[in-house]
């Protein structure tokens, strides 16, 4: 459902992402685990067609990010970490509807979808309130709904729990698991071992732009004969730091 093939991104002489290769199947959560500056966000930005790869490509569903970026964007939903990124002067419904319209949904489908999402996330009471009047938790739910309003097959999460409190982190985790349940392909970047271990079917350890190793968590544990993902991560990253 998602294949990353020799994906590389250079900014001048600096190689931010270096020849990345991995595959994620439908209904699978792939965790991109790495420290700050490892290349996670750049990778996700390329997958979301915000940045153009210097070389290599990725096939998102049926579409190539280099050849059909518009189709790719139609296929993906994305959620960023930190502030929910809503338009404060628009209502919750208008925020969701704007993204639905931009994804070429018709009015009837938008209404039906918003009603459905409002029920799913329990947003009925504040659907017509301006985003500026909503609590952090409410805003987060609106951001979830906005990300999946067009029912994308692929979900990209860029450090979605960064800067959130415990309750909000739990909401994000539930949302990611829900996406998996719905059969969506999920790529999830994080620097937290525990949430990667909790959520991901497969993990790719990225450091200084290079994918150090990839596989299911069990596979990695067996391969490195260690029960702690943190130990494995430090060993891989440490190797590279030394190298």
């Amino acid at each position, binding site marked *: 459902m998602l294949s990353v093939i020799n994906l590389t991104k250079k900014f001048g002489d600096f190689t931010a992402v270096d020849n990345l290769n991995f595959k994620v199947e439908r209904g699978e959560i792939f965790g991109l685990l790495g420290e700050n500056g490892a290349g996670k966000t750049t990778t996700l930005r390329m997958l979301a067609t915000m940045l153009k790869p210097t070389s290599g490509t990725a096939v998102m569903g049926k579409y190539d990010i280099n050849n059909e970026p*518009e189709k790719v964007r139609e296929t993906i939903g994305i959620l960023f970490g930190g502030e929910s*990124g809503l*338009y*404060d002067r628009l209502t919750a419904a208008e925020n969701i509807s704007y*993204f639905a319209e931009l994804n070429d949904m018709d009015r009837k489908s938008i209404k039906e979808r918003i009603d459905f999402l409002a029920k799913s996330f329990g947003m009925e009471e504040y659907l017509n309130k301006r985003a500026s009047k909503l609590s952090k938790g409410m805003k987060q739910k609106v951001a979830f709904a906005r990300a999946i309003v067009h029912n994308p097959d692929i979900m990209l999460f860029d450090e979605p729990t960064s800067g959130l409190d415990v309750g909000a982190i739990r909401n994000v985790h539930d949302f990611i698991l829900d996406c998996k349940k719905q059969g969506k392909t999920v790529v999830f970047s994080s620097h937290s071992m525990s949430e990667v271990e909790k959520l991901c079917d497969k993990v790719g350890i990225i450091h200084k732009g290079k994918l150090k190793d990839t596989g299911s968590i069990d596979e990695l544990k067996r391969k490195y004969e260690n029960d702690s993902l943190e130990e494995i991560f430090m060993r891989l990253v440490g190797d590279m730091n030394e190298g």
Partner: protein
Amino acid sequence: MKARHVWIVFKKEVKDIIRDKRTVITNIVIPMILIPLINILVGGGVEKLQRDIEENITITLSETSRTDEIKNLVENEIFKDKPNIRLVDTDNPIDAVRDADVRLVLDFDSDYKQKLTEEKPFVIKLMYDKSSTKSEAAVSIVSQAINEYNMRLVAQRLTQRNIDLEILEPARVEPVNVAKEGQGGNMVLMMTLPMIIAILVVVGGIPAATDLVAGEKERNTFEPLLTTKPDRASILMGKYLTVTLFSFVSIVAIGMGFVIGYIINPNSITMGTGEQLTGASIPPLALVLSILITVILGMMFAGIQIALSAYARSFKEAQTYLSFLIFAAMIPAYATMFTQPADIKVYVFLIPILNTISAFKMVLGGVIDYTSLLVALVSSIIYLAITLAITASMFNKEKVLFRS
């Protein structure tokens, strides 16, 4: 680029901005209130000053001139037909002028009476305060009145000698105004209106431009927007059209402000100078060309504003960059405030901002040169194309959009 996507972005941005009370107040409400208020206040002030200068001119006599004879001469001879000039008594005449209690002090030659009888000239010193507009203006009004007295006296003397009064006027001056109707009649408007239009067109879109790109980046809404289906050109065009719209909203609000001011007090539009607004002589083609040049200037600056806002890392950085545009508009606007339309060279019409100011000066001054207007129009279109190309390329540059 898809028109549907452009329309969705445009519609949303307009709705978003209209809900921002600050922008609505700055762009719409303030110009509609401020313009009539300024015009009426300044106009009222000018009218009052004019009235004060011409009416209630108080004069006094110097200590050496304070005799009943001179008082009588002043009140019943020199200023007998001048009810606006009034002689008053003061203890200290010079201080009275300095304190603005009187406008002038008249000091007569001590032997004035003898000279008058001998038909020899005598001197009346007019002591005034140059730092006071009213005192300075009174000098010419009082001098004029004294000249009239001189003429009456001379006429009387010539009549006594049986000499025809025409001897006094070997050549008579007769000024004839040959200007077309309306030319030069809108002096105040010609100075202020082009300047206001140019400044507003250049700066009117700044709040919207700051909010629509730099603001989005700061609120973390920009990246999610870029991951939606529309291409960047559609998103840029939707935002660009919004900024363009708001560049002109201020102009419309200013126009309404002038209309409101005119309804409240028709004199306010020429700031109380008493000039009549003459619009009948403006050729429609010249007006249309000037409006087109202005629209293109606004579109060009909307592009520059979006480009600067996209380049900025934060809302504040965008505000700093965009504030330079205010200077870019104000410097040429003030520099050409007193330029007369007939003196504007053709090359000036090649310079953005100056071309708009010059075009409106021409239209309001009634001195139309279509070659200059066409030069302005064609050059403006070229500048617009260049600006939009640069803006579009910036909006597609990863280094610009993801600067951090």
